[in-house]
């Protein structure tokens, strides 16, 4: 009798409690975030998420006065990097080398000079002399991680990690969930997403929609691509046909960090699936800067990336293409 009760108790203790869905959402980094996770109880709270976000802002945000990245930009030589700056900085350097300099987190002064930065645009296009002067303080070859320090060869070198900080933040929030033994979750911030596991109790995989740059997709959801994902990160970068007319010349907002001049390519949007959101976010930016042929060659050398591209044909119409691995994830190819 006593034994029977004991074994019943054992059974009760060892049987996992049913998983419930928990949702957290809020504002961060100039955009919004949303987290869904399945757990027996609300083991991760909004306070923990906010704390994590605040910590990242204090390290990587250019909008946060006194942040570590702002200290670095003000410093002559460099700063002692914290965990966040070290991880994101080394990822930026890795992708810089991997893309032969097309992805460059130091390009910001040139972007500003051509009028695409956050500050008020200049009245006229920069002169060749100005560009030469700016090029001297641009280039990730002047940026180094030495031990715990992030250092620069030129005092005026400025770092801008906005393009990949969101992806990294998604990874940090995913890690927060993992530390609390959560294995089924979706983390989204600013349209950058990372998932693991499945939805409960249905056992369905996570379903992620890809927003088309032409937003008539909203009226006809069938046009929107939807993929099923169990593990990984998916991010999108887009060119909003953002042009600036300076004098008689219409300039695209892509700037070649090596020449200092704007260029146009046919890319409209790039969606990347990778193991983690930092990687996906870095490569979606890099691929936006390649032409279609160059991107396809690059992707053959990077089987770990699954990519969906929307581009503009010479006749102005939009077309899309995807790597074969990506096509396999499409719900209705």
């Amino acid at each position, binding site marked *: 009798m006593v034994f029977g009760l004991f074994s019943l108790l054992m059974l009760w203790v060892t049987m996992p409690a049913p998983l419930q869905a928990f949702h957290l959402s809020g504002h961060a980094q100039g955009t919004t975030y949303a987290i869904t996770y399945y757990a027996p109880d609300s083991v991760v709270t909004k306070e923990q998420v906010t704390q994590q976000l605040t910590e990242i802002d204090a390290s990587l945000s250019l909008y946060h006065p006194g942040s570590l990245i702002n200290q670095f930009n003000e410093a002559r030589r460099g700063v002692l990097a914290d965990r966040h700056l070290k991880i994101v900085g080394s990822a930026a350097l890795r992708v810089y080398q991997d893309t032969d300099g097309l992805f460059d987190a130091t390009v910001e002064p040139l972007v500003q000079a051509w009028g695409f930065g956050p500050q008020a645009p200049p009245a006229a296009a920069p002169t060749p002399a100005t560009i030469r002067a700016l090029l001297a303080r641009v280039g990730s070859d002047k940026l180094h991680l030495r031990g715990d320090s992030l250092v620069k060869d030129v005092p005026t070198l400025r770092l*801008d990690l906005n393009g990949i900080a969101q992806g990294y933040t998604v990874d940090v929030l995913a890690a927060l969930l993992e530390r609390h033994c959560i294995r089924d979750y979706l983390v989204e911030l600013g349209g950058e997403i990372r998932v693991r596991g499945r939805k409960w109790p249905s056992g369905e995989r996570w379903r992620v929609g890809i927003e088309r*740059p032409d937003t008539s997709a909203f009226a006809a959801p069938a046009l929107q691509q939807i993929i099923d994902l169990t593990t990984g990160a998916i991010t999108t970068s887009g060119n909003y046909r953002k042009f600036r007319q300076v004098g008689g010349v219409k300039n695209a907002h892509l700037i070649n960090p090596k020449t200092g001049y704007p260029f146009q390519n046919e890319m409209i949007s790039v969606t990347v699936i990778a193991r983690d959101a930092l990687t996906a976010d870095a490569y979606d930016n890099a691929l936006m800067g390649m032409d279609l042929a160059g991107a396809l060659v690059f992707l053959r050398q990077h089987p770990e990336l699954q990519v969906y591209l929307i581009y503009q044909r010479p006749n102005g119409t939009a077309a899309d293409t995807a790597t074969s691995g990506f096509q396999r994830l499409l719900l209705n190819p």
Partner: protein
Amino acid sequence: MTNFARRDFLQKTGLLTGGLLLPNGLIDVFATAPMADKIKIGIIGCGDRGKGLLKILQELPDKFEVIGLADELPFRLRDARKIDKAGKGKLYADYRALLDVRAIEAVIIAVPLHLHFAVAKAALLAGKQVFLEKTMTYDIPQAQELVRLAQQRPNQTLQVGHQYRYSPLYYRVKEMIAQGYLGKVTQIDCRWDRNGSWRRPLPEPGLERQINWRMYREYSGGLAAELLSHQMDFINWAFDTHADEIMGTGGIDYYKDGRETYDNVQVMVRYAREGMIGNFGATCANARDGYLFKLKGTKGTISLLIDEGIYYPEKETLKQYGTVDGVTGATKITWNKEGGIPITTGAEPLKDGSWYALSDFYRAIKENKTPDSNVLTGARTACTVHLANQAIYNHTIEKWRPEYSFS
């Protein structure tokens, strides 16, 4: 590449970005390579509206050159002179003298409603290009005659100043209606309320009827003509329709100050072909709603302000979109607190509707194209307003007649 600040364009773009989808005309407007020849223009009527348009013209120095200003009140001419930076505008007490000036190619007419027809007719006969303030005419017979006159003069532009719908926001809304965002629209709610007498202060005693012409039925179509006509015009244009049956009521319910036009009106309109009901109201005795414009359909609602629009999908529509757990995209769908999505029109901040209207006026003249707000749409709206006022003041139910449809 980190060559843009996401935060920056997240603020400027949104889900319903329609910048690429504007009608060709407006794309041309945005893509202005400065055209060589300016249009020499005169302004007839330098009251609030005339001066407002004069200010907008200051922002379009590559398109218009103001060389004449007409008003019978000298202090208005003095005020207008101060706004006109170039200072090339000659002053005329009599608009007919301005029309006699050969060099003036185009005129803006911003006089009290009862004068619209006479001045517009004189301007057309003088060979001018005409931008005529709304409502196009005081009554239906005048609208019919102005249409006839304009049609006899195909080389002259007559644009009617329903400026709000010239905003890219309103073009986008028209497009969204066509794309089916709203589903079947059955109800449209429009208000334009204020808590105030709607009177202008008199600079000199004795000018009551000239300054506050809106208070007198002899000169004005009241709240329906001055305010509700914009929304009536937009619905006609967006749905390519007209009212079939109009009911109305109203009264001088708060400001018993000698005015004749009502300070509180309500109009109910049946659009038979569309199966829609339009509710149009204006009061001078409550400001809570202010400007309100809601289009309600089976799939969603659009709520419009002058320069802001929000799309609220219905529950069933939401479910359709909710089949995904997340959406990746660089613009990212952002819902506001009430579950609506801001309607945006591209990275450029919206300008005043009159800026777009006058830019289109320029294009219509230069390319001899019919403006979007033209004599025919203006006449249909003028007829709607006239019928609305008949219904309001006579307590009748007014019916549309085929001859009001104009073509």
